[in-house]
Protein backbone atom coordinates (compact mmCIF):
# COMPACT_ATOMS: atom_id res chain seq x y z
CA UNK A 1 0.00 0.00 0.00
CA UNK A 2 2.95 2.32 0.72
CA UNK A 3 4.10 2.03 -2.89
CA UNK A 4 0.59 2.60 -4.24
CA UNK A 5 0.31 5.79 -2.18
CA UNK A 6 3.74 6.85 -3.40
CA UNK A 7 2.63 6.44 -7.02
CA UNK A 8 -0.66 8.18 -6.24
CA UNK A 9 1.13 11.13 -4.64
CA UNK A 10 3.30 11.63 -7.70
CA UNK A 11 0.30 11.41 -10.03
CA UNK A 12 -1.70 13.95 -8.04
CA UNK A 13 1.28 16.30 -8.13
CA UNK A 14 1.52 15.71 -11.87
CA UNK A 15 -2.17 16.58 -12.37
CA UNK A 16 -1.63 19.74 -10.36
CA UNK A 17 1.41 20.77 -12.38
CA UNK A 18 0.01 19.94 -15.79
CA UNK A 19 -2.29 22.04 -17.88
CA UNK A 20 -4.36 18.94 -18.65
CA UNK A 21 -5.48 18.45 -15.05
CA UNK A 22 -6.62 22.05 -14.64
CA UNK A 23 -8.19 22.17 -18.10
CA UNK A 24 -10.21 19.00 -17.55
CA UNK A 25 -11.36 20.17 -14.11
CA UNK A 26 -12.36 23.62 -15.35
CA UNK A 27 -14.13 22.26 -18.43
CA UNK A 28 -16.03 19.72 -16.34
CA UNK A 29 -17.27 22.33 -13.89
CA UNK A 30 -18.20 24.68 -16.71
CA UNK A 31 -20.24 22.04 -18.53
CA UNK A 32 -21.92 20.94 -15.30
CA UNK A 33 -22.76 24.55 -14.50
CA UNK A 34 -24.20 25.22 -17.95
CA UNK A 35 -26.18 21.99 -17.81
CA UNK A 36 -27.51 22.80 -14.35
CA UNK A 37 -28.50 26.30 -15.42
CA UNK A 38 -30.12 25.20 -18.67
CA UNK A 39 -31.89 22.06 -17.52
CA UNK A 40 -32.22 22.42 -13.78
CA UNK A 41 -33.00 26.08 -13.19
CA UNK A 42 -35.15 26.79 -16.23
CA UNK A 43 -38.91 26.80 -15.75
CA UNK A 44 -40.70 25.82 -12.55
CA UNK A 45 -39.90 22.34 -11.21
CA UNK A 46 -39.93 20.38 -8.04
CA UNK A 47 -36.66 20.71 -6.12
CA UNK A 48 -36.10 16.94 -6.28
CA UNK A 49 -36.44 17.06 -10.07
CA UNK A 50 -33.92 19.88 -10.28
CA UNK A 51 -31.49 17.85 -8.20
CA UNK A 52 -32.08 14.73 -10.29
CA UNK A 53 -31.45 16.73 -13.44
CA UNK A 54 -28.20 18.05 -11.97
CA UNK A 55 -27.00 14.52 -11.18
CA UNK A 56 -28.01 13.38 -14.65
CA UNK A 57 -25.74 15.97 -16.26
CA UNK A 58 -22.97 15.52 -13.71
CA UNK A 59 -22.92 11.75 -14.24
CA UNK A 60 -22.32 12.17 -17.98
CA UNK A 61 -19.59 14.72 -17.41
CA UNK A 62 -17.96 12.53 -14.77
CA UNK A 63 -17.78 9.55 -17.12
CA UNK A 64 -16.02 11.62 -19.76
CA UNK A 65 -13.68 13.20 -17.21
CA UNK A 66 -12.80 9.77 -15.83
CA UNK A 67 -11.79 8.46 -19.26
CA UNK A 68 -9.82 11.63 -20.05
CA UNK A 69 -8.02 11.39 -16.70
CA UNK A 70 -7.16 7.76 -17.25
CA UNK A 71 -5.63 8.09 -20.73
CA UNK A 72 -2.18 9.39 -19.73
CA UNK A 73 -1.89 7.12 -16.70
CA UNK A 74 -0.30 4.20 -18.56
CA UNK A 75 -0.38 4.94 -22.30
CA UNK A 76 1.06 8.40 -21.65
CA UNK A 77 3.84 6.97 -19.49
CA UNK A 78 4.56 4.40 -22.17
CA UNK A 79 4.77 7.10 -24.84
CA UNK A 80 7.12 9.22 -22.73
CA UNK A 81 9.23 6.17 -21.79
CA UNK A 82 8.68 6.68 -18.06
CA UNK A 83 6.72 3.49 -17.41
CA UNK A 84 10.02 1.64 -17.31
CA UNK A 85 10.90 3.49 -14.07
CA UNK A 86 7.91 1.85 -12.39
CA UNK A 87 8.37 -1.47 -14.18
CA UNK A 88 11.95 -1.85 -12.98
CA UNK A 89 11.32 -0.67 -9.42
CA UNK A 90 10.67 -3.20 -6.66
CA UNK A 91 6.94 -2.59 -6.64
CA UNK A 92 4.15 -4.87 -7.84
CA UNK A 93 2.09 -4.18 -10.93
CA UNK A 94 -1.07 -4.04 -8.84
CA UNK A 95 0.48 -1.25 -6.76
CA UNK A 96 1.19 0.74 -9.92
CA UNK A 97 -2.41 0.33 -11.08
CA UNK A 98 -3.98 1.03 -7.70
CA UNK A 99 -1.74 4.05 -7.11
CA UNK A 100 -2.67 5.62 -10.42
CA UNK A 101 -6.33 4.74 -9.95
CA UNK A 102 -6.41 6.37 -6.51
CA UNK A 103 -4.81 9.54 -7.85
CA UNK A 104 -7.31 9.90 -10.67
CA UNK A 105 -10.20 9.03 -8.34
CA UNK A 106 -9.02 11.73 -5.94
CA UNK A 107 -9.10 14.26 -8.78
CA UNK A 108 -12.59 13.15 -9.79
CA UNK A 109 -13.62 13.40 -6.16
CA UNK A 110 -12.21 16.92 -5.98
CA UNK A 111 -14.05 18.06 -9.11
CA UNK A 112 -17.24 16.46 -7.79
CA UNK A 113 -16.79 18.16 -4.44
CA UNK A 114 -16.34 21.58 -6.03
CA UNK A 115 -19.63 21.12 -7.87
CA UNK A 116 -21.50 20.86 -4.59
CA UNK A 117 -22.40 24.55 -4.71
CA UNK A 118 -24.96 23.75 -7.41
CA UNK A 119 -27.16 21.43 -5.32
CA UNK A 120 -26.77 23.91 -2.46
CA UNK A 121 -28.26 26.62 -4.69
CA UNK A 122 -31.50 24.64 -4.65
CA UNK A 123 -31.86 25.51 -0.97
CA UNK A 124 -32.22 29.19 -1.91
CA UNK A 125 -35.69 28.71 -3.33
CA UNK A 126 -36.49 25.10 -2.58
CA UNK A 127 -35.83 22.14 -0.36
CA UNK A 128 -34.24 18.74 -0.91
CA UNK A 129 -33.04 16.20 1.60
CA UNK A 130 -29.32 16.02 2.31
CA UNK A 131 -29.68 12.24 1.98
CA UNK A 132 -30.77 12.72 -1.64
CA UNK A 133 -27.68 14.88 -2.24
CA UNK A 134 -25.39 12.37 -0.54
CA UNK A 135 -26.82 9.38 -2.42
CA UNK A 136 -26.63 11.24 -5.74
CA UNK A 137 -22.99 12.08 -5.15
CA UNK A 138 -22.29 8.50 -4.10
CA UNK A 139 -23.65 7.39 -7.47
CA UNK A 140 -21.50 9.96 -9.29
CA UNK A 141 -18.32 8.81 -7.54
CA UNK A 142 -19.12 5.12 -8.10
CA UNK A 143 -19.84 5.76 -11.76
CA UNK A 144 -16.65 7.79 -12.05
CA UNK A 145 -14.72 4.97 -10.42
CA UNK A 146 -16.06 2.40 -12.88
CA UNK A 147 -15.44 4.65 -15.90
CA UNK A 148 -11.95 5.33 -14.60
CA UNK A 149 -11.21 1.61 -14.33
CA UNK A 150 -12.47 1.09 -17.89
CA UNK A 151 -10.20 3.93 -19.05
CA UNK A 152 -7.24 2.48 -17.18
CA UNK A 153 -7.73 -0.86 -18.86
CA UNK A 154 -7.75 0.70 -22.33
CA UNK A 155 -4.75 2.81 -21.34
CA UNK A 156 -2.93 -0.38 -20.31
CA UNK A 157 -3.58 -2.15 -23.60
CA UNK A 158 -2.78 0.85 -25.82
CA UNK A 159 0.58 1.93 -27.14
CA UNK A 160 -0.44 5.55 -27.56
CA UNK A 161 -2.72 8.01 -25.82
CA UNK A 162 -4.73 8.52 -28.99
CA UNK A 163 -5.40 4.80 -29.17
CA UNK A 164 -6.26 4.74 -25.48
CA UNK A 165 -8.72 7.61 -25.93
CA UNK A 166 -10.43 5.94 -28.90
CA UNK A 167 -10.63 2.54 -27.19
CA UNK A 168 -11.75 4.08 -23.91
CA UNK A 169 -14.45 6.12 -25.60
CA UNK A 170 -15.69 3.14 -27.56
CA UNK A 171 -15.76 0.78 -24.59
CA UNK A 172 -17.51 3.36 -22.45
CA UNK A 173 -20.08 4.01 -25.20
CA UNK A 174 -20.76 0.29 -25.49
CA UNK A 175 -21.13 -0.08 -21.73
CA UNK A 176 -23.49 2.89 -21.56
CA UNK A 177 -25.67 1.93 -24.53
CA UNK A 178 -26.16 -1.70 -23.59
CA UNK A 179 -29.65 -0.78 -22.36
CA UNK A 180 -30.55 0.24 -25.93
CA UNK A 181 -29.43 -3.16 -27.19
CA UNK A 182 -31.46 -4.70 -24.39
CA UNK A 183 -34.55 -3.03 -25.80
CA UNK A 184 -34.32 -4.97 -29.05
CA UNK A 185 -33.44 -8.36 -27.55
CA UNK A 186 -35.56 -11.07 -25.97
CA UNK A 187 -35.56 -12.30 -22.36
CA UNK A 188 -33.38 -13.36 -20.63
CA UNK A 189 -30.68 -11.66 -22.72
CA UNK A 190 -32.28 -8.24 -22.44
CA UNK A 191 -32.30 -8.50 -18.67
CA UNK A 192 -28.62 -9.33 -18.58
CA UNK A 193 -27.70 -6.54 -21.00
CA UNK A 194 -29.84 -4.03 -19.20
CA UNK A 195 -28.25 -5.01 -15.90
CA UNK A 196 -24.78 -4.62 -17.36
CA UNK A 197 -25.39 -1.12 -18.74
CA UNK A 198 -23.17 1.36 -16.96
CA UNK A 199 -25.54 4.28 -16.62
CA UNK A 200 -29.25 3.89 -17.38
CA UNK A 201 -30.73 1.39 -14.95
CA UNK A 202 -27.88 1.55 -12.43
CA UNK A 203 -27.45 5.30 -12.07
CA UNK A 204 -31.08 6.40 -12.13
CA UNK A 205 -31.87 5.23 -8.56
CA UNK A 206 -28.91 7.22 -7.20
CA UNK A 207 -30.18 10.34 -9.02
CA UNK A 208 -33.52 10.02 -7.32
CA UNK A 209 -31.95 9.46 -3.92
CA UNK A 210 -32.51 5.71 -3.75
CA UNK A 211 -29.50 3.75 -2.54
CA UNK A 212 -29.64 0.11 -3.62
CA UNK A 213 -26.91 -2.27 -2.52
CA UNK A 214 -27.05 -4.17 -5.81
CA UNK A 215 -26.13 -1.01 -7.71
CA UNK A 216 -23.23 -0.27 -5.37
CA UNK A 217 -22.02 -3.85 -5.78
CA UNK A 218 -22.35 -3.53 -9.57
CA UNK A 219 -20.12 -0.44 -9.76
CA UNK A 220 -17.57 -1.91 -7.36
CA UNK A 221 -17.52 -5.12 -9.42
CA UNK A 222 -17.00 -3.25 -12.71
CA UNK A 223 -14.19 -1.23 -11.10
CA UNK A 224 -12.52 -4.35 -9.71
CA UNK A 225 -12.85 -6.28 -12.96
CA UNK A 226 -11.27 -3.60 -15.14
CA UNK A 227 -8.52 -2.78 -12.63
CA UNK A 228 -7.69 -6.48 -12.47
CA UNK A 229 -7.67 -6.63 -16.28
CA UNK A 230 -5.34 -3.60 -16.38
CA UNK A 231 -3.01 -5.25 -13.86
CA UNK A 232 -2.91 -8.51 -15.82
CA UNK A 233 -2.27 -6.58 -19.03
CA UNK A 234 0.69 -4.86 -17.42
CA UNK A 235 2.03 -8.20 -16.20
CA UNK A 236 1.52 -9.86 -19.58
CA UNK A 237 3.51 -7.17 -21.39
CA UNK A 238 6.68 -8.45 -19.75
CA UNK A 239 6.27 -11.73 -21.64
CA UNK A 240 6.02 -10.11 -25.07
Amino acid at each position, binding site marked *: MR*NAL*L*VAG*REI*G*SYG*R*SLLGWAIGAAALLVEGVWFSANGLSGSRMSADVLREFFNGASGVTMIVAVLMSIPLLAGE*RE*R*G*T*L*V*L*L*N*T*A*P*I*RDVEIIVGKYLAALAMIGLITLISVYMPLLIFVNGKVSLGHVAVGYTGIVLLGSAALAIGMFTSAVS*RSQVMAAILGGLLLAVMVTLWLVAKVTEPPVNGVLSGMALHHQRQFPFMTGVLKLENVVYYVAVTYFFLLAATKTLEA*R*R*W*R
Partner: protein
Amino acid sequence: MTKAFAVIEIVDLYKYYGERRAVGPLSFSIEAGEIVGLLGLNGAGKTTTLRILACDLLPSSGSVRVNGLDVVESPHEVRSLIGYLPDTPPLYGEMTVRAYLHFAARLRGLSKASADKRVPEVLEATALAEVQDQLIASLSHGYKQRVGIAQAIVHGPKLLVLDEPISGLDPVQIVEMRELLRSLKGEHTILLSSHILSEISETCDRLLVIRDGQIAATGTEAELSAKLLKNQRALLTVRGDEEKAKEVASAVAGVVSVEAIDATEGGEGVVTLQIESDGDAREAVCRALVTAGIGLLEVRRGERELESVFLELAGAETTDGGSGAAPKKKRAGKKGAKKARASAGEGDAGAKDAAAEKEDGSGT
Protein backbone atom coordinates in the same frame (compact mmCIF):
# COMPACT_ATOMS: atom_id res chain seq x y z
CA MET B 1 42.85 -18.97 -5.47
CA THR B 2 39.23 -18.01 -4.95
CA LYS B 3 37.08 -17.13 -7.91
CA ALA B 4 35.54 -13.65 -7.82
CA PHE B 5 31.80 -13.55 -7.18
CA ALA B 6 29.68 -13.25 -10.33
CA VAL B 7 27.16 -10.44 -9.97
CA ILE B 8 25.61 -11.34 -13.31
CA GLU B 9 25.44 -14.90 -14.58
CA ILE B 10 23.60 -15.55 -17.83
CA VAL B 11 23.39 -19.08 -19.17
CA ASP B 12 21.80 -20.04 -22.50
CA LEU B 13 19.50 -17.06 -22.56
CA TYR B 14 16.99 -16.88 -25.40
CA LYS B 15 14.42 -14.19 -26.10
CA TYR B 16 11.93 -14.39 -28.95
CA TYR B 17 9.65 -11.64 -30.21
CA GLY B 18 7.03 -13.80 -31.87
CA GLU B 19 8.95 -15.99 -34.31
CA ARG B 20 12.00 -13.76 -34.38
CA ARG B 21 14.92 -14.63 -32.16
CA ALA B 22 16.22 -11.41 -30.66
CA VAL B 23 18.72 -12.97 -28.25
CA GLY B 24 20.28 -16.37 -27.87
CA PRO B 25 22.04 -18.51 -27.13
CA LEU B 26 23.68 -15.98 -24.85
CA SER B 27 25.96 -16.82 -21.95
CA PHE B 28 28.32 -14.60 -20.00
CA SER B 29 29.13 -13.58 -16.48
CA ILE B 30 30.32 -10.38 -14.87
CA GLU B 31 32.24 -10.23 -11.64
CA ALA B 32 31.80 -7.77 -8.80
CA GLY B 33 33.37 -4.38 -9.39
CA GLU B 34 33.83 -4.74 -13.14
CA ILE B 35 32.78 -2.16 -15.72
CA VAL B 36 31.78 -4.15 -18.77
CA GLY B 37 30.72 -2.80 -22.14
CA LEU B 38 28.11 -4.61 -24.21
CA LEU B 39 28.91 -3.66 -27.75
CA GLY B 40 26.76 -4.33 -30.79
CA LEU B 41 24.99 -2.73 -33.69
CA ASN B 42 21.39 -1.62 -33.39
CA GLY B 43 19.15 -4.69 -33.30
CA ALA B 44 21.94 -6.98 -32.06
CA GLY B 45 20.14 -7.76 -28.83
CA LYS B 46 21.77 -5.34 -26.38
CA THR B 47 18.64 -3.59 -25.16
CA THR B 48 16.70 -6.84 -24.90
CA THR B 49 19.47 -8.37 -22.77
CA LEU B 50 19.62 -5.33 -20.51
CA ARG B 51 15.84 -5.20 -20.14
CA ILE B 52 15.78 -8.83 -19.09
CA LEU B 53 18.48 -8.10 -16.52
CA ALA B 54 16.44 -5.16 -15.22
CA CYS B 55 13.34 -7.40 -14.94
CA ASP B 56 11.47 -5.24 -17.44
CA LEU B 57 11.15 -8.20 -19.80
CA LEU B 58 10.96 -11.91 -19.22
CA PRO B 59 13.30 -14.32 -21.02
CA SER B 60 11.91 -17.01 -23.34
CA SER B 61 14.31 -19.55 -21.86
CA GLY B 62 17.63 -19.81 -20.08
CA SER B 63 18.88 -18.64 -16.75
CA VAL B 64 19.63 -15.06 -15.73
CA ARG B 65 20.92 -14.54 -12.22
CA VAL B 66 21.82 -11.33 -10.47
CA ASN B 67 23.76 -11.77 -7.26
CA GLY B 68 22.60 -15.39 -7.29
CA LEU B 69 18.91 -14.48 -7.63
CA ASP B 70 16.91 -15.60 -10.65
CA VAL B 71 15.18 -12.73 -12.50
CA VAL B 72 12.08 -14.84 -13.15
CA GLU B 73 11.72 -16.35 -9.68
CA SER B 74 12.73 -13.31 -7.62
CA PRO B 75 12.13 -10.20 -9.74
CA HIS B 76 11.25 -8.06 -6.73
CA GLU B 77 14.55 -8.78 -4.99
CA VAL B 78 16.56 -8.43 -8.20
CA ARG B 79 15.03 -5.01 -8.93
CA SER B 80 16.17 -3.83 -5.51
CA LEU B 81 19.75 -4.72 -6.46
CA ILE B 82 19.74 -3.01 -9.84
CA GLY B 83 19.89 0.55 -11.02
CA TYR B 84 18.68 0.73 -14.60
CA LEU B 85 19.01 3.52 -17.14
CA PRO B 86 17.14 2.72 -20.36
CA ASP B 87 18.20 4.23 -23.68
CA THR B 88 15.70 7.05 -23.09
CA PRO B 89 16.00 8.22 -19.48
CA PRO B 90 12.62 7.75 -17.73
CA LEU B 91 12.19 11.33 -16.60
CA TYR B 92 9.10 13.25 -15.55
CA GLY B 93 9.63 16.65 -17.14
CA GLU B 94 7.20 18.42 -14.84
CA MET B 95 9.17 17.47 -11.71
CA THR B 96 12.24 19.19 -10.33
CA VAL B 97 15.46 17.17 -10.26
CA ARG B 98 15.40 16.90 -6.48
CA ALA B 99 11.73 15.87 -6.29
CA TYR B 100 12.24 13.29 -9.03
CA LEU B 101 15.25 11.72 -7.34
CA HIS B 102 13.40 11.67 -4.03
CA PHE B 103 10.51 9.87 -5.73
CA ALA B 104 12.88 7.39 -7.41
CA ALA B 105 14.59 6.71 -4.08
CA ARG B 106 11.31 6.08 -2.28
CA LEU B 107 10.16 3.90 -5.18
CA ARG B 108 13.27 1.75 -4.75
CA GLY B 109 12.44 1.14 -1.10
CA LEU B 110 14.30 3.88 0.77
CA SER B 111 12.52 5.39 3.75
CA LYS B 112 11.75 9.11 3.70
CA ALA B 113 14.62 9.82 6.09
CA SER B 114 17.06 7.72 4.04
CA ALA B 115 15.93 9.38 0.82
CA ASP B 116 16.35 12.84 2.41
CA LYS B 117 19.93 11.90 3.27
CA ARG B 118 20.79 10.08 0.06
CA VAL B 119 19.44 12.52 -2.57
CA PRO B 120 21.89 15.36 -1.75
CA GLU B 121 24.77 12.85 -1.91
CA VAL B 122 23.69 11.67 -5.34
CA LEU B 123 23.15 15.25 -6.54
CA GLU B 124 26.73 15.96 -5.50
CA ALA B 125 28.14 12.77 -7.04
CA THR B 126 26.49 13.43 -10.38
CA ALA B 127 27.21 17.18 -10.38
CA LEU B 128 23.52 18.04 -10.43
CA ALA B 129 23.42 20.16 -7.28
CA GLU B 130 23.27 23.43 -9.21
CA VAL B 131 20.17 22.37 -11.18
CA GLN B 132 18.42 20.48 -8.37
CA ASP B 133 15.50 22.92 -8.23
CA GLN B 134 15.02 23.19 -11.99
CA LEU B 135 12.27 21.37 -13.84
CA ILE B 136 13.68 18.37 -15.66
CA ALA B 137 11.99 19.47 -18.89
CA SER B 138 14.16 22.59 -18.92
CA LEU B 139 17.47 20.71 -18.70
CA SER B 140 19.89 20.06 -21.56
CA HIS B 141 20.31 16.55 -22.95
CA GLY B 142 23.55 16.07 -21.04
CA TYR B 143 21.96 17.03 -17.74
CA LYS B 144 18.96 14.81 -18.44
CA GLN B 145 21.34 11.91 -18.99
CA ARG B 146 22.97 12.72 -15.66
CA VAL B 147 19.59 12.72 -13.95
CA GLY B 148 19.01 9.32 -15.57
CA ILE B 149 22.25 8.04 -14.02
CA ALA B 150 21.34 9.67 -10.70
CA GLN B 151 18.00 7.87 -10.53
CA ALA B 152 19.79 4.61 -11.26
CA ILE B 153 22.24 5.00 -8.35
CA VAL B 154 20.01 6.79 -5.86
CA HIS B 155 19.22 3.63 -3.89
CA GLY B 156 22.85 2.45 -3.86
CA PRO B 157 22.39 -0.64 -6.06
CA LYS B 158 25.04 -3.32 -6.41
CA LEU B 159 24.62 -3.44 -10.17
CA LEU B 160 24.18 -0.61 -12.64
CA VAL B 161 22.70 -1.45 -16.03
CA LEU B 162 23.05 1.47 -18.42
CA ASP B 163 21.68 1.35 -21.96
CA GLU B 164 23.65 3.68 -24.24
CA PRO B 165 24.43 6.24 -21.52
CA ILE B 166 26.76 8.20 -23.78
CA SER B 167 24.50 8.26 -26.82
CA GLY B 168 23.68 11.72 -28.15
CA LEU B 169 26.09 13.60 -25.90
CA ASP B 170 28.46 16.23 -27.25
CA PRO B 171 32.24 15.68 -26.88
CA VAL B 172 32.49 17.65 -23.63
CA GLN B 173 29.52 15.80 -22.16
CA ILE B 174 31.05 12.48 -23.25
CA VAL B 175 34.22 13.24 -21.31
CA GLU B 176 32.18 14.27 -18.27
CA MET B 177 30.04 11.14 -18.52
CA ARG B 178 33.14 8.94 -18.75
CA GLU B 179 34.52 10.57 -15.62
CA LEU B 180 31.19 10.07 -13.88
CA LEU B 181 31.08 6.39 -14.83
CA ARG B 182 34.67 5.87 -13.72
CA SER B 183 33.87 7.52 -10.40
CA LEU B 184 31.12 4.97 -9.86
CA LYS B 185 33.52 2.05 -10.29
CA GLY B 186 34.23 0.15 -7.13
CA GLU B 187 30.97 1.10 -5.50
CA HIS B 188 28.99 -0.55 -8.28
CA THR B 189 29.37 -3.27 -10.86
CA ILE B 190 28.46 -1.66 -14.17
CA LEU B 191 27.18 -3.11 -17.42
CA LEU B 192 26.72 -0.53 -20.15
CA SER B 193 25.87 -0.85 -23.78
CA SER B 194 26.82 1.06 -26.88
CA HIS B 195 26.94 0.61 -30.62
CA ILE B 196 30.05 2.77 -30.92
CA LEU B 197 33.27 1.24 -29.65
CA SER B 198 35.14 4.48 -29.08
CA GLU B 199 32.37 5.72 -26.79
CA ILE B 200 32.97 3.06 -24.18
CA SER B 201 36.36 1.48 -24.85
CA GLU B 202 38.06 3.99 -22.55
CA THR B 203 35.56 3.45 -19.76
CA CYS B 204 35.23 -0.33 -19.63
CA ASP B 205 37.46 -3.00 -18.14
CA ARG B 206 36.14 -5.55 -20.57
CA LEU B 207 34.07 -5.61 -23.74
CA LEU B 208 31.45 -8.10 -24.88
CA VAL B 209 30.74 -7.86 -28.59
CA ILE B 210 27.20 -9.03 -29.33
CA ARG B 211 25.99 -10.03 -32.75
CA ASP B 212 22.63 -11.56 -33.65
CA GLY B 213 21.92 -12.03 -29.96
CA GLN B 214 25.12 -13.97 -29.31
CA ILE B 215 28.55 -13.07 -27.96
CA ALA B 216 30.88 -12.71 -30.93
CA ALA B 217 34.01 -11.76 -28.98
CA THR B 218 35.05 -10.83 -25.49
CA GLY B 219 38.08 -9.25 -23.84
CA THR B 220 39.73 -5.97 -23.07
CA GLU B 221 40.30 -3.53 -25.91
CA ALA B 222 43.97 -4.53 -25.96
CA GLU B 223 43.14 -8.23 -26.04
CA LEU B 224 40.65 -7.75 -28.85
CA SER B 225 43.20 -5.69 -30.79
CA ALA B 226 45.90 -8.32 -30.37
CA LYS B 227 43.56 -11.15 -31.23
CA LEU B 228 41.77 -9.57 -34.14
CA LEU B 229 44.36 -7.30 -35.74
CA LYS B 230 46.86 -10.08 -36.42
CA ASN B 231 47.47 -9.15 -40.06
CA GLN B 232 49.59 -6.16 -40.95
CA ARG B 233 48.56 -3.83 -43.68
CA ALA B 234 50.61 -1.83 -46.17
CA LEU B 235 49.57 0.62 -48.86
CA LEU B 236 51.74 0.74 -51.96
CA THR B 237 51.20 3.24 -54.75
CA VAL B 238 52.71 2.05 -58.03
CA ARG B 239 52.70 2.96 -61.70
CA GLY B 240 52.14 0.12 -64.11
CA ASP B 241 49.79 -2.66 -65.02
CA GLU B 242 47.35 -3.22 -62.13
CA GLU B 243 46.83 -6.92 -62.73
CA LYS B 244 50.53 -7.61 -63.03
CA ALA B 245 51.27 -5.61 -59.87
CA LYS B 246 48.64 -7.57 -57.93
CA GLU B 247 49.98 -10.86 -59.26
CA VAL B 248 53.56 -10.03 -58.28
CA ALA B 249 52.59 -8.79 -54.83
CA SER B 250 50.41 -11.82 -54.16
CA ALA B 251 53.30 -14.16 -54.95
CA VAL B 252 55.43 -12.75 -52.12
CA ALA B 253 55.68 -15.04 -49.09
CA GLY B 254 53.46 -14.01 -46.19
CA VAL B 255 51.07 -11.90 -48.27
CA VAL B 256 47.51 -12.83 -47.43
CA SER B 257 45.58 -10.54 -49.71
CA VAL B 258 46.11 -7.81 -52.28
CA GLU B 259 43.41 -5.38 -53.20
CA ALA B 260 43.41 -2.36 -55.52
CA ILE B 261 41.88 0.70 -53.96
CA ASP B 262 41.42 4.28 -55.16
CA ALA B 263 44.84 5.69 -55.95
CA THR B 264 46.18 8.12 -53.38
CA GLU B 265 47.58 10.31 -56.18
CA GLY B 266 46.64 11.08 -59.75
CA GLY B 267 48.46 10.09 -62.92
CA GLU B 268 48.16 7.65 -65.74
CA GLY B 269 48.54 4.03 -64.69
CA VAL B 270 48.84 4.93 -61.00
CA VAL B 271 47.38 2.29 -58.72
CA THR B 272 47.31 1.95 -54.94
CA LEU B 273 47.45 -1.59 -53.58
CA GLN B 274 46.31 -2.52 -50.12
CA ILE B 275 48.33 -5.50 -48.95
CA GLU B 276 47.65 -7.61 -45.89
CA SER B 277 50.31 -9.97 -44.66
CA ASP B 278 51.54 -12.10 -41.78
CA GLY B 279 54.30 -9.89 -40.44
CA ASP B 280 55.86 -6.94 -42.19
CA ALA B 281 56.16 -7.77 -45.91
CA ARG B 282 56.79 -4.25 -47.23
CA GLU B 283 60.44 -4.75 -48.14
CA ALA B 284 59.86 -8.06 -49.91
CA VAL B 285 56.89 -6.74 -51.85
CA CYS B 286 58.75 -3.58 -52.89
CA ARG B 287 61.69 -5.68 -54.07
CA ALA B 288 59.43 -7.97 -56.07
CA LEU B 289 57.57 -5.08 -57.71
CA VAL B 290 60.73 -3.23 -58.70
CA THR B 291 62.25 -6.46 -60.02
CA ALA B 292 59.11 -6.98 -62.12
CA GLY B 293 59.56 -3.54 -63.66
CA ILE B 294 56.74 -1.81 -61.86
CA GLY B 295 57.39 1.74 -60.72
CA LEU B 296 57.16 2.21 -56.96
CA LEU B 297 55.85 5.68 -56.02
CA GLU B 298 54.95 5.41 -52.35
CA VAL B 299 54.94 2.91 -49.49
CA ARG B 300 52.90 3.43 -46.35
CA ARG B 301 52.03 1.30 -43.38
CA GLY B 302 48.27 0.97 -43.05
CA GLU B 303 46.68 0.82 -39.65
CA ARG B 304 43.53 -1.09 -38.97
CA GLU B 305 41.19 0.49 -36.49
CA LEU B 306 39.63 -1.66 -33.82
CA GLU B 307 36.38 0.12 -34.67
CA SER B 308 36.36 -1.43 -38.14
CA VAL B 309 37.20 -4.84 -36.72
CA PHE B 310 34.34 -4.38 -34.31
CA LEU B 311 32.07 -3.58 -37.22
CA GLU B 312 33.10 -6.82 -38.91
CA LEU B 313 32.63 -8.76 -35.71
CA ALA B 314 29.33 -7.11 -35.04
CA GLY B 315 28.00 -8.11 -38.37
CA ALA B 316 28.37 -5.14 -40.70
CA GLU B 317 29.14 -6.39 -44.19
CA THR B 318 32.37 -4.61 -44.92
CA THR B 319 35.79 -5.52 -46.20
CA ASP B 320 37.09 -2.36 -44.62
CA GLY B 321 39.62 -2.34 -41.97
CA GLY B 322 41.40 0.67 -43.18
CA SER B 323 42.02 3.84 -41.39
CA GLY B 324 42.74 7.30 -42.48
CA ALA B 325 45.57 5.80 -44.51
CA ALA B 326 43.07 4.52 -47.05
CA PRO B 327 40.41 7.12 -47.36
CA LYS B 328 38.74 5.98 -50.56
CA LYS B 329 38.30 2.32 -51.31
CA LYS B 330 37.39 1.05 -54.67
CA ARG B 331 35.12 -1.58 -53.16
CA ALA B 332 34.34 -0.70 -49.60
CA GLY B 333 36.16 2.05 -47.83
CA LYS B 334 34.89 4.25 -45.07
CA LYS B 335 31.74 4.80 -47.03
CA GLY B 336 31.39 1.06 -47.38
CA ALA B 337 31.74 0.60 -43.69
CA LYS B 338 29.14 3.26 -42.98
CA LYS B 339 26.83 1.83 -45.55
CA ALA B 340 27.32 -1.65 -44.17
CA ARG B 341 26.72 -0.35 -40.69
CA ALA B 342 23.61 1.36 -41.83
CA SER B 343 22.33 -1.77 -43.50
CA ALA B 344 23.16 -3.89 -40.50
CA GLY B 345 21.82 -1.61 -37.85
CA GLU B 346 20.03 1.36 -39.23
CA GLY B 347 18.69 0.16 -42.53
CA ASP B 348 15.33 -1.43 -43.19
CA ALA B 349 15.92 -4.85 -41.67
CA GLY B 350 18.12 -3.52 -38.93
CA ALA B 351 15.66 -0.80 -38.12
CA LYS B 352 12.84 -3.31 -37.88
CA ASP B 353 14.87 -5.49 -35.57
CA ALA B 354 15.93 -2.53 -33.52
CA ALA B 355 12.37 -1.32 -33.29
CA ALA B 356 11.22 -4.72 -32.09
CA GLU B 357 14.05 -4.76 -29.58
CA LYS B 358 13.13 -1.36 -28.21
CA GLU B 359 9.52 -2.27 -27.81
CA ASP B 360 8.38 -2.91 -24.29
CA GLY B 361 6.65 -5.82 -25.53
CA SER B 362 5.92 -3.42 -26.84
CA GLY B 363 5.64 0.15 -26.17
CA THR B 364 8.05 1.36 -23.60
